[in-house]
């Protein structure tokens, strides 16, 4: 098979079922999802503005991934379940309880950044109180941590489910295989969400794998592999709800692939025009989950001119207030940079 023939496809027969299930969602639930979608986008755009104005050194963006993250995380018990994120998880961590101000504290490397106190680059989320595991930069290492968290949940009988996110590039790494293999053997309560945006920085998916879909790899572990259109929030929610229910009832993991557009360059240090076809870039906005979900909710009559205006004003206010708070926060003191290499008895657990 040539690289060109390898094409990503959706799992068959899902659209109809998804639409029916979507009808089960109440209007206020759909509006809550929409709020997080818009909030994540607005936070992300502000991250870029901070970088472009010289206040932030670096941005790694989640634009285009938000719909899939909102749909998937909405299927969790957001207080009780675990999230093991990756660097595009802006929407996911907002939904797990981190307010915009905390994202900006991370973005600006502030001392009160709750994920790392300014030690890590932006995009490396973590927050123990919200059950969001601290993230590193090597891809796929976190999938094993998710399996371990899920094993502990099962052994201790906590009833927790663990959702972990990665890109499709991470599925080429050995830890992806080792994690899915271990999780499948022990039927662990974990959902592997792969956000396939078609590129690992510049390398297209056809050079990443010889199968059309990441989800095809599930067959090697005897678990369900599902591919859904990540631009459709409710379709992702539907698939994630099934995966979470399966995890919760002891049936084991699911490999859930969501096809998402990468609306920005890989990071603020990348120019995607160099390697992405002009035509492809021109059509990206059609797959923008904000655009797609806005149209869908207007059509359903859930979104009205009045509540849309209120919601957008609320998002704007929260992003502005969060930015102000973060910009006013202190930078780390170098005298603290030696702290917490090891446990410090006086500092608490």
């Amino acid at each position: 098979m040539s690289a060109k023939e390898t094409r990503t496809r959706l799992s068959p027969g899902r659209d109809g079922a998804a639409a029916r299930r979507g009808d089960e969602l109440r209007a206020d639930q759909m509006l809550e999802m929409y709020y997080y979608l818009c909030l994540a986008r607005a936070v992300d755009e502000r991250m870029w503005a901070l970088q472009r104005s010289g206040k932030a050194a670096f941005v790694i963006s989640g634009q285009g991934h938000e719909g899939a993250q909102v749909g998937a995380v909405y299927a969790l018990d957001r207080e009780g379940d675990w999230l093991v994120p990756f660097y595009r998880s802006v929407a996911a961590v907002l939904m797990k309880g981190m307010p915009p101000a905390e994202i900006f504290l991370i973005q600006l490397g502030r001392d009160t950044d709750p994920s790392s106190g300014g030690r890590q680059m932006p995009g490396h989320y973590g927050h123990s109180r919200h059950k969001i595991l601290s993230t590193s930069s090597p891809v796929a290492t976190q999938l094993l941590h998710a399996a371990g968290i899920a094993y502990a949940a099962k052994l201790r009988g906590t009833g927790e489910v663990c959702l972990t996110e990665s890109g499709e590039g991470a599925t080429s790494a050995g830890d992806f295989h080792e994690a899915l293999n271990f999780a499948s053997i022990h039927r662990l309560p974990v959902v592997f969400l792969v956000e396939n945006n078609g590129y690992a920085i510049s390398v297209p998916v056809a050079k990443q794998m010889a199968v059309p879909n990441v989800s095809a790899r599930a067959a090697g572990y005897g678990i369900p592999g599902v591919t859904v259109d990540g631009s459709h929030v409710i379709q992702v929610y539907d698939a994630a709800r099934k995966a979470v229910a399966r995890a919760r009832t002891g049936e084991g993991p699911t490999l859930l692939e969501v096809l998402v557009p990468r609306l920005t360059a890989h990071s603020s240090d990348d120019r995607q025009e160099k390697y992405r076809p002009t035509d492809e870039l021109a059509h990206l906005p059609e797959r923008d989950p904000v655009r797609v979900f806005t149209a869908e909710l207007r059509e359903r009559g859930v979104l009205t001119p009045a509540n849309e205006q209120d919601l957008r004003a609320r998002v704007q206010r929260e992003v502005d207030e969060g930015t102000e708070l973060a910009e006013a926060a202190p930078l780390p003191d170098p005298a603290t940079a030696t702290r917490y290499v090891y446990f410090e008895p006086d500092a608490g657990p």
Partner: protein
Amino acid sequence: MADKRFLDAIHDALHEEMARDSTVVVLGEDVGKKGGVFGVTEGLSEAFGEARVIDSPLAESGIVGVAIGMSVNGLRPVAEIQFADFIHAAFDQILSEAARLRYRSKNDFGCPIVIRAPFGGGVHGALYHSQSIEAFYAHIPGMKVVVPATPADAKGLLVAAIRDPDPVLYLEHKKMYRSVRGEVPATEFTVPIGPAVVRRAGRDLSIFAYGLMANEALRAADTLAREGIEAEVVDVRTLRPLDTTTILDSVGRTSRALIVHEDNRFGGFGAEIAATIAEEGFRHLDAPPTRLCGPDVPAVPFSQPIEDWFMLTAEKIAAAARALAAY
């Protein structure tokens, strides 16, 4: 006190900690019904069940990565790497994840895992069943590295490692499993991670060693004593954090330092001890800090004469000590 083999002391520590604390789990290749390829985990599966004694797939990064996740969610995993030679597949998980979790989250997360790994040569294990790997891992801030030399330390250090809030690499020299015996206290005890111990006092030179080499150094000291050379033997036993006080105090008494390890010399752990002595104990010295190490070939070779050529013994240590004492 009971007379125990090195291997039984490690086993007992695991068994007693698993009985004491239901969050302690063991995972690794063949640790279940088989009881480990060396028999260290013998009987644990029967006593505590398959859910807490996990026969893992044959994948070292997975073993350590899963252990990290377990530790984040309330368990105290003890991961066994079947041979230290195979640990490097987990290097990224150890370096980038386990050792950094606390620092990178500014204390929001910790990583209380133990990684046990049999290391060392002299058992016809050749290139992939004999290596010493401590230098790679002792280099990593955030890791603790211990190497017991006696059954009592094997038990006490392992109990301390399991209860430690940070990741600990616990290296056990496989040649010692059934060849080294010693008294082990019958009651519950720990040996704290950190302090080195003076195993034998002496005035003429200090020998710094750990694991099997600490035992060989003691034998060498017996030989040397019959010749009128009194060697002090310091069992370093924790490589990180390193007890520089005990090391420098010893050099203060003897003015001569011989550092012995089986691992290769170049960039080996002995260089750290030698540099510490040179930088902080220079005024005490009557001779250059001296290293006796495994030769700088890529690994321990197999056939008897070439394995013997590689391995350090009490005789080789005694010879190096004589030269240093005469400097």
